[in-house]
């Protein structure tokens, strides 16, 4: 799980996932870009910076999910400091409840390996990390953003550290009415007319706090983290005939805690990680006669690992997991308790010009029997500092969610895990000149899911079953230039992905048809410039047309944001003013069919930092 790599007098903890995924295709979101979206939710940032497809049910604060490489929302695993935080009930994660500014590091790992990241990695993994800074420093900050449609976001934080101790904590809250205007179509006797409507029942209130504590002495290091998040969100109605009427409301809350210990003895390193996660959801359909439906889940997650540095070239790693999963959902009919164990073995071979990672993992679940996972990846410098080749073959699985197993009616205890194998290969071209650092990254991937789980109609009800095969393949390219000196800094990045996600079972009616909500083309363009204390940025994203579940064609999405941040230092107090325009060209679009998204949105923010 974790190791200590000595870099001068600073000890840097490297997690197991980092150790074994450094040959994977990965987007580490630049801090330049993150600065422009500190108070935004993560789905919004990823829609600008990564090759992910975002679903959003209209407005800020609405349920948002992220899909990678043709996978569904439940095929992207999300880890916070090593803990998987996807919902036990649905398998997905609500990215509207993840605040960008809460983390020191955000990584998107495309096609992450099942033997390293666990269940639900067909599309990839998203890592959210809080990292220690073992230098003497202290910082207090407060920021406030006000946006169109009565949106307000407040964030306060503190960081304190010395050579042995590092703490960071934040509190964030937001509130929004989201009463934006949109164009809807209305049928009249004379035909269709376009009418301007105002979004209603889309109010959101959000509160969260996150704290991370790190401490080290001698050979030991400890870390602890707490993350609480709650959201009270009204769910708007859909576009269509009449005013989009809805009285639906959903309240979500989650508490996540993690404690870890690391110890280095000679050339061996041990670590223990334990986490507790509780998630709650209360949905009310707005009918006065209805009772709200409630969902509560709890998880104990425990990992014990060791790492052995055989010599300068070879590292062996082993890990065991024990998780206890509890679901308390009315529709399950009873309290559900599952236990799962896993054992992982891995080896890393590393030379100056070559990295080879290999791993296997076997999970044992008290209900299902996930397949044996494996991964073999490599990164080789063909021309040092210039051309690097990358290749990987790995397997993936997704254990059935609690809803798929226990929901009454239709939950199916006989479901097999989704499983499949993928491979990918790519090349990275780099060149450092006086004009800056240029990188071109090209990647091709091919991934099978041989046992997709779907809900299907069954005698007028629904049933979760293993259906046919799904194939996902495509290319991802990224061109990046960055230049940095004392007074100036620039990052310009253009990323493009072409992907095909298709049904791949010849016996299926939809054989070779494309999956819904999967655009073929994605383009992301980011340009950021720092000129002394001024940071300006332009982010443009394009998503080609796609089809919804009813095979309705949804038009392309073309969005541009502009932002700037100006810092003033007055008597050791940093004042920052941010301005941002989202959807600069007031483009009318939807990410989930019939749920309109906001048009041009203005944000202004103030930051004080001591």
């Amino acid at each position, binding site marked *: 799980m974790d190791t200590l790599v000595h870099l001068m007098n600073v000890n840097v903890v490297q997690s197991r996932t980092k150790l074994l995924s450094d040959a994977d295709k990965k987007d580490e979101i630049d801090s330049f870009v993150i600065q422009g979206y500190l108070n935004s939710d993560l789905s919004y940032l990823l829609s600008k910076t990564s090759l992910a497809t975002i679903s959003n049910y209209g407005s800020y604060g609405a349920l948002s999910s992220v899909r990678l490489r043709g996978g569904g929302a439940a095929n992207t695993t999300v880890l916070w400091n090593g803990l998987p935080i996807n919902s036990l009930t649905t398998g997905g994660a609500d990215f509207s409840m993840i605040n960008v500014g809460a983390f020191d590091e955000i990584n998107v790992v495309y096609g992450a390996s099942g033997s390293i990241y666990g269940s639900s990695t067909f599309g990839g993994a998203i890592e959210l990390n809080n990292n220690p800074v073992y230098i003497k420093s202290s910082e207090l900050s407060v920021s406030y953003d006000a946006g169109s449609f009565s949106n307000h976001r407040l964030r306060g934080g503190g960081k304190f550290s010395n050579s042995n101790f590092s703490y960071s904590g934040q509190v964030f809250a937001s509130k929004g009415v989201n009463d934006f205007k949109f164009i809807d179509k209305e049928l009249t006797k004379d035909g269709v007319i376009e009418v301007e409507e105002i979004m209603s029942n889309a109010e959101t209130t959000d509160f969260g706090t996150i704290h991370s504590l790190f401490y080290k002495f001698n050979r030991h290091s400890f870390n602890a983290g707490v993350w609480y998040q709650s959201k009270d969100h009204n769910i708007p*109605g859909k576009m*269509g*005939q009449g005013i989009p009427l809805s009285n639906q409301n959903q309240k979500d809350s989650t508490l996540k805690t993690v404690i870890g210990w690391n110890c280095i003895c000679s050339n061996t390193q041990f670590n223990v990680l334990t986490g507790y996660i509780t998630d709650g959801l209360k949905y009310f359909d*707005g009918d006065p006669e209805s009772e709200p439906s409630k969902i509560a889940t709890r998880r104990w997650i425990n990992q014990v690992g060791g790492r052995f540095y055989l010599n300068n070239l070879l590292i062996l790693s082993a890990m065991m997991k024990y998780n206890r999963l509890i679901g308390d959902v009315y529709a399950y009919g*009873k309290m559900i308790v599952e236990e799962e164990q896993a054992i992982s073995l891995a080896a890393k071979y590393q030379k100056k010009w070559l990295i080879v990672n290999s791993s296997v993992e076997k999970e044992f679940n008290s209900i299902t029997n996930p397949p044996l996972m494996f991964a073999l990846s490599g990164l080789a410098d063909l021309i040092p500092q210039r051309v690097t080749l990358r290749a990987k073959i790995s397997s993936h699985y997704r254990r059935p969610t609690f809803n798929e197993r226990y929901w009454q009616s239709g939950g199916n205890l006989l479901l097999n895990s989704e499983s499949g194998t993928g491979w990918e290969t790519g090349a990275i071209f780099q060149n450092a000149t006086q004009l800056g650092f240029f990188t071109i990254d090209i990647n091709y991937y091919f991934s099978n899911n041989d046992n997709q789980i779907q809900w299907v*109609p069954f005698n007028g009800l629904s049933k979760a079953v293993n259906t046919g095969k799904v194939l996902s393949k495509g290319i991802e390219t990224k061109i990046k230039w960055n230049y940095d000196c004392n007074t100036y800094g620039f990052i310009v990045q253009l990323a493009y992905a072409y992907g095909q996600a298709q049904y791949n079972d010849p016996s299926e009616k939809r054989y070779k048809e494309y999956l819904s909500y999967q655009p073929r083309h994605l383009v992301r363009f980011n340009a950021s410039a720092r000129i002394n204390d001024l940071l300006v940025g332009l982010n443009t994203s394009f998503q080609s047309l796609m089809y919804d579940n*009813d095979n*309705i064609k949804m038009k392309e999405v073309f969005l541009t944001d502009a932002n700037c941040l100006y810092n003033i230092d007055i008597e050791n107090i940093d004042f920052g003013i941010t301005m941002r325009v989202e959807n600069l060209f007031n483009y009318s679009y939807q990410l989930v*069919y019939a749920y309109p998204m906001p048009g041009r949105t203005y944000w202004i923010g103030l930051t004080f930092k001591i």
Partner: protein
Amino acid sequence: MKNLLKFSFLFVTCMLVFAACSDDDDALSIEMKGVLVLNEGSGTGSISYIKTETDSILNNAFKQVNSVDLGSYPQAMALSDKYIFITVTTNTGAGLVEVVDRSNLKHVTYFDGFSYPREITVNGNYAYVSNGKYKGAIHTISISALTMDEDSILVGYGPEKMIVNKGKLFVANSGGYGTDSTVSVIDINTKKVVDTVFVKHCPKDMVIDANGNIWVYCSGVPNYSNGTFYNSGISKISSTDYSVKSFDLSNPSYAVKSIAINNAKDQVYFITDAVYCMDIDATSLPINSLIDDSFYGIDVDPLTDNIWACDVKSYSAPSDVVVYSNTGQELKRYTVGVIPNSCIFNR
């Protein structure tokens, strides 16, 4: 000659490009005499039009005619002389009844204000709409004036199918999000509930036979933990004294459109694990199935007596409507929209 070929090739290419670039939103205007299939959809419903003379299918017909979507989860259609009434349930409390021209599906008007509209039936100048997840009500629409009565008629929980017999409107109270086991009887002149008949649990669908008796399909209360259904069955309500004779079903369908009757009104078709045919004078349920497959809904073509069955196998893929003879022989199969639930015969 070569130049001519080149010119022809160029011309055809230009025409193809022009066709490809033409506006998809141009409204369609054609006569739609044939079979109309209502597709609930995965999030957006639609209507498929099947022209039986030519076996041609026009999917998403409502949108092609009107350039907008029909709405979420349409449940039922009913024909009047001039109009087709369509209940659009939605899942947000914004239900409506869409009214279109019977000849071409063009929008005429709509009625909103429904919380959960389910079924609609037409009798004379009135259309009756059942509405409500919980305590339900029947709303009355005047067809000639295209107006809706302000007052509704309170019935049981989760009203679904309605049927008119001898001046009475029978309403199957399915229970909706709860349970119920009654059929409300409304005098259509006074618009008052005059009787309540107890049948098996969760009555959803009804047909009327040649003797005027009403057959009520009751799906029962499911016990999901062991896969059984409590008090499910088919109840036959006497036309004379409303007495009830019931037949137990151990494996009912939970589809809403689960019972149909032939044109002579002497053979009842119903769905469980298969489609069965039962003589209206039979004293027990049939043992042998007519069609060895289960469906989401069945209807009988008044012209041919064929059975039209909605064969739904996916929530996100176009499904089939299968046509069977009244002896259970498959005749035709049409691929329609997502989750078809019923057919009406608009000839």
